């Protein structure tokens, strides 16, 4: 019995400790006090971590409180997270949706409570959103294809490594890529690697096995591109690989010369703009419904 009490006491301490040090802002009455809620799709991906850091940095600079919840790529968890945020009383909700369709009901729930919603990176299919902040993925896909045409040449043999099937980024980047590639390039293979580096390595290895004459690879994100680099290395080939997102790892790979280029999004900018927009919304200022964030080609 004593041991049981000890265990319980330990449990209390652990929760207390974690609750104390894990907090991103100081405590206090939150209701309608200008706190911003931020639901991020996942923190298992450096891109969204950078976005989160952008949010945190800008909020600190502006002296705003922000509550951050991580959906771990599960739309149902995101719905729970958002209802928790709404329950704990936030003035503005910034959502980085796991899935555009699934987020609709949560946006509608916020609408019903008159909490303004800003979406970042991925949009919501339904519900009222005051602003959507995103890179122009279609344009980014086109930029990637054009770069390959420029550097490798017209009708070059290209493989495309796609993201999670059905994800909006996959659809849009693919669409942009094909806008150009279908005319000017030969796409010999098209496989999904779920935005994951390990899967990118495997998929690229398989593609290179089947199509040894591939000259260039376009991966829908940097993680998969970095996997593809490893695959090319093991196969002993020099391939023109283009990634997407512009993560720190990808930047380094571009500097090292292993990655030809990455179409860099600026997640920290997205996070910063999201907080700026949120501040405007709190102050009652008007904001643009679509706020594009610049993409840039990072190459050596």
């Amino acid at each position, binding site marked *: 019995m004593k041991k049981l009490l000890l265990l319980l006491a330990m449990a209390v301490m652990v929760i*207390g400790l974690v609750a104390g040090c894990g907090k991103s802002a100081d405590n206090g009455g939150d209701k309608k006090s200008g706190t911003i809620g931020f639901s991020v799709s996942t923190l298992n991906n450096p891109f969204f971590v950078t976005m989160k850091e952008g949010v945190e940095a800008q909020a600190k600079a502006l002296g705003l409180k922000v509550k951050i919840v991580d959906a771990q790529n599960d*739309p149902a968890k995101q719905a729970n997270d958002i209802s928790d945020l709404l329950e704990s009383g936030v003035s503005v909700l910034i959502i980085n949706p796991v899935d555009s*369709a699934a987020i609709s009901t949560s946006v509608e729930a916020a609408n019903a409570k008159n909490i303004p919603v800003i979406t970042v990176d991925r949009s919501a299919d339904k519900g009222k959103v005051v602003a959507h902040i995103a890179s122009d993925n279609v344009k980014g896909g086109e930029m990637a294809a054009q770069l390959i045409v420029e550097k490798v040449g017209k009708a070059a043999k290209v493989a495309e490594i796609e993201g999670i099937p059905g994800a909006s980024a996959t659809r849009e980047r693919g669409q942009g890529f094909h806008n150009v590639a279908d005319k000017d390039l030969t796409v010999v293979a098209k496989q999904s690697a779920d935005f994951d580096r390990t899967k990118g390595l495997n998929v690229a290895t398989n593609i290179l096995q089947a199509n040894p004459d591939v000259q260039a690879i376009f991966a829908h994100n940097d993680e998969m591109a970095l996997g593809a680099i490893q695959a090319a290395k093991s196969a002993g080939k020099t391939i023109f690989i283009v990634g997407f997102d512009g993560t720190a790892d990808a930047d380094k790979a571009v500097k090292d010369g292993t990655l030809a280029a990455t179409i860099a999004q600026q997640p920290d900018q997205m996070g910063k703009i999201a907080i700026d927009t949120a501040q405007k919304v709190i102050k009652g200022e008007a904001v643009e419904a679509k706020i594009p964030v610049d993409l840039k080609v990072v190459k050596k």
Partner: protein
Amino acid sequence: MDSKALQYIKKLGPLIGLILLFIIISVMNDSFLEFSNLRNLLRQVSINAIIAFGMTFVILTGGIDLSVGSILALSSAVMANLIVTGTDPVLAIVLAAGAGLVLGGINGLVITYGRVAPFIATLATMTIYRGATLVFTDGNPISGLTQDPLFHGFGQGDIAGLPVPAITMFLAFIALWFVLSRTSLGRKTYAVGGSEKVSYIAGIKIDRVKIFVYALTGMLCGIAGAIITSRLNSAQPTAGAGYELDAIAAVVLGGTSLAGGRGHIVGTLIGALIIGTLNNGLNILDVSSFYQQVVKGIVILLAVLADRKKA
């Protein structure tokens, strides 16, 4: 302390834990105990709880079902597809449960007639069902479902101030509690887990009992899938990934032995509430999501350790 009192405390252990958790969180943030948040909490708990009810039956027979998340996704996709193609939404919900029943039944058949260990069998079907979901949906979420209020209400609505998923959860709980403690089928579920050999020699049709528990779990996953579909107003091909672990955690937190034969669905309800309360409470307390996972793991470990100390 005499053994009777100790036994009693052992049974009450999970409940005491839940109450303590409530006290700790509400002391640290007063908005936690507000009625609207408790409703919110129940809505969030319902999906895991419904799956965990089925998992309790499976674990009581000494088995395990890893395929619950995939069954949820596939039946959710089937349901969304039916709705998109014009099936009556209420009928679609019933058919989703039916799809789950069939998928779970397949698990049962593989395990009994195929003589495959439950862990392996459901590990395989987990992958198969997930793949089938991706094939079926082409990897895309199915959205643009119906505006039918009955369908919407199933995941999002309230009746008499209570969220509909929570009502579904309580109805399932009552029905399954009855099956488990008041029918011969429930008794046989325990018997198979207590000793398969004794049950077999006593003439119990252990294959039937096993197929029943897996089919039941599948059906409950179908229902949970229907709730998610309504809640998200779309079917996600990746829905339910990792849900098997939450369900197993709820069952274990509730004091059911993974070796089978011992435990109860009442504990599972409390276990699911503990996990849900942690998720909700840590969000409300604004604990960093990285720490949240650490805390959840520690709580599960402490619960199991405390259970062992008392035994």
